[in-house]
């Protein structure tokens, strides 16, 4: 059970003046149950890549296998794939259209062929997960605040109960509290249900805090692929492609340069705290 990409390339508007090679020979394996962070500078091809994973965009060349089956095979059921690989777009609130919140979230499950009751059941559950209480169910989605709309839109995909959940910058434009709530919820889902999560993000802190594997894109190519501490070790290189490491990485590196015995691979505040306290303790003993 996994997604495998083999030599995937994609070109927008081929053979015109606007030709853009958005993906160049991407090879990836995404096993079940991983929490993956996808980072990269603006225009590096992240959104294009994730749209390949549920078959919305067809690779110009290369193959994609979902659970061992070639998704470009002739009789492959793309709609079923889209139910299994849920994709939350960048600014998903722009896709809301129904008269009330509940019906909008029901759209996905209904398209999967569920009965109205089952769909409602799923929708309620999904809404609860994203923290939208029942009193909003009958409200028009257009009367909600931006953050609430975002949650409803995310619920719209969650209600399909995908095996792989992809979120394209789900927290862009949200306040810190809303951001943490949504990410915590996703992390909880990942742990409880064991679903695979791919998080596209510009925030190195978020990525370092939640994910177990980072894929770095640069100009349509995979630049790095590994655990956060491995990837952030290349923080100088990340900077050269318009990215950065989490703030704490800089702190621990500076401390290290100043002669403190800290772990330079610390990427989250917790880890940094541990290693800095540890270093001070050792130093204290020596004094």
């Amino acid at each position, binding site marked *: 059970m996994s997604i495998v990409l083999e030599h995937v390339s994609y070109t927008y*508007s081929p053979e015109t*003046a606007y030709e853009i090679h958005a993906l160049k020979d991407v090879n990836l394996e995404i096993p079940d149950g991983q929490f993956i962070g996808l980072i990269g500078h603006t225009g590096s091809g992240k959104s294009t890549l994730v749209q390949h994973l549920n078959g*919305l965009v067809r690779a110009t060349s290369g193959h994609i296998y979902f659970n061992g089956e070639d998704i470009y095979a002739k009789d492959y059921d793309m709609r079923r794939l*889209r139910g299994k690989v849920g*994709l939350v777009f960048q600014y998903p609130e*722009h896709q*809301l259209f129904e008269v009330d919140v509940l019906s909008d979230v029901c759209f996905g499950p209904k398209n*999967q062929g569920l009965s109205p009751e089952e769909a409602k059941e799923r929708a309620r559950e999904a809404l609860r997960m994203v923290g939208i209480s029942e009193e909003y169910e009958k409200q028009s989605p257009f009367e909600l605040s931006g953050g609430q709309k975002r949650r409803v839109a995310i619920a719209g*995909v969650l209600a*399909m109960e995908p095996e792989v959940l992809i979120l394209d910058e789900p927290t862009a434009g949200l306040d810190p509290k809303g951001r943490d709530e949504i990410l915590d919820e996703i992390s909880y889902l990942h742990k409880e249900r064991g679903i695979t999560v791919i998080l596209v993000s510009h925030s190195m802190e978020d990525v370092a805090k939640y994910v177990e594997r980072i894929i770095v894109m640069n100009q349509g190519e995979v630049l790095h692929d590994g655990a956060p501490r491995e990837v952030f070790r290349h923080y100088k290189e990340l900077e050269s492609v318009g990215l950065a490491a989490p703030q704490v990485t800089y702190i621990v590196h500076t401390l290290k340069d100043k002669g403190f015995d800290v772990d330079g691979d610390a990427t989250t505040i917790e880890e940094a705290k541990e290693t800095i306290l540890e270093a001070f303790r050792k130093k204290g003993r020596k004094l």
Partner: protein
Amino acid sequence: MIRDITLGQYYPADSILHRLDPRVKLMGTILFLVGLFLIKGWAGYAVATVFLFAMIRISKVPFRFIVRGLKTIFIILLITLVFNLFLTPGDRVLVQIWKLQITDKGLNTAIFMAIRLIYLIIGSSLMTLTTTPNDLTDGLETLLGPLKKLHVPVHEVSMMMSIALRFIPILLEETDKIMKAQMARGADFEHGNLIQRAKSLVPLLVPLFISAFRRASDLAMAMEARCYRGGEGRTKMKPLAYARRDYCAYGILILFLAVIIALRVLL
């Protein structure tokens, strides 16, 4: 599929056609269209064909890019073709199928009508492909300037036109995005009967309209914030001025029209 509509889209390239004054291109397009409707007989079409293909070559816009715009009018083209083919009475019946008949005249009209339509679209696409929307409205505004005396709101109309043109690609992109987002939720735009398909458009059209209104109100706000208040007393950063090549272009255009008229009168 949605990106195939080339009408109203600019194709950046460095050619004489791109550098021409927009007024020349506008007048040129109008003259070309007038010419098309004056044509009678093969000779005229031959001249128009040579003229049009020469222009395409000069414009440096790839031929494929221009033809792509034709796909969208294919249906209209087909309908015109069929109607003209079967419903034009003529002297000689070429083919008879049940009650329908194709006459020599019908065949003639159908072919010429099709050529005319295709050239019409290509001609006007060529103008929009080689002229930025800003230039285009600038040209239009200057050309229609005299109408201001008759209290026609020329500036406002051309501003609306330029905004409309500018928004075509944006709305197409938006459509593409929303379509994908709904497809990710299992929406199906391709299958089903007519009613089902019409229904399936609701999840596309509602967000599209909302986004169009949002963009419109944002734009209005931004224009007001920069003190836009219509054409009254507004000057231009780059006033249009004819160069030598523009006069040459006018010359060529008049020559083209003259040849067409001559052919019509003589043959």
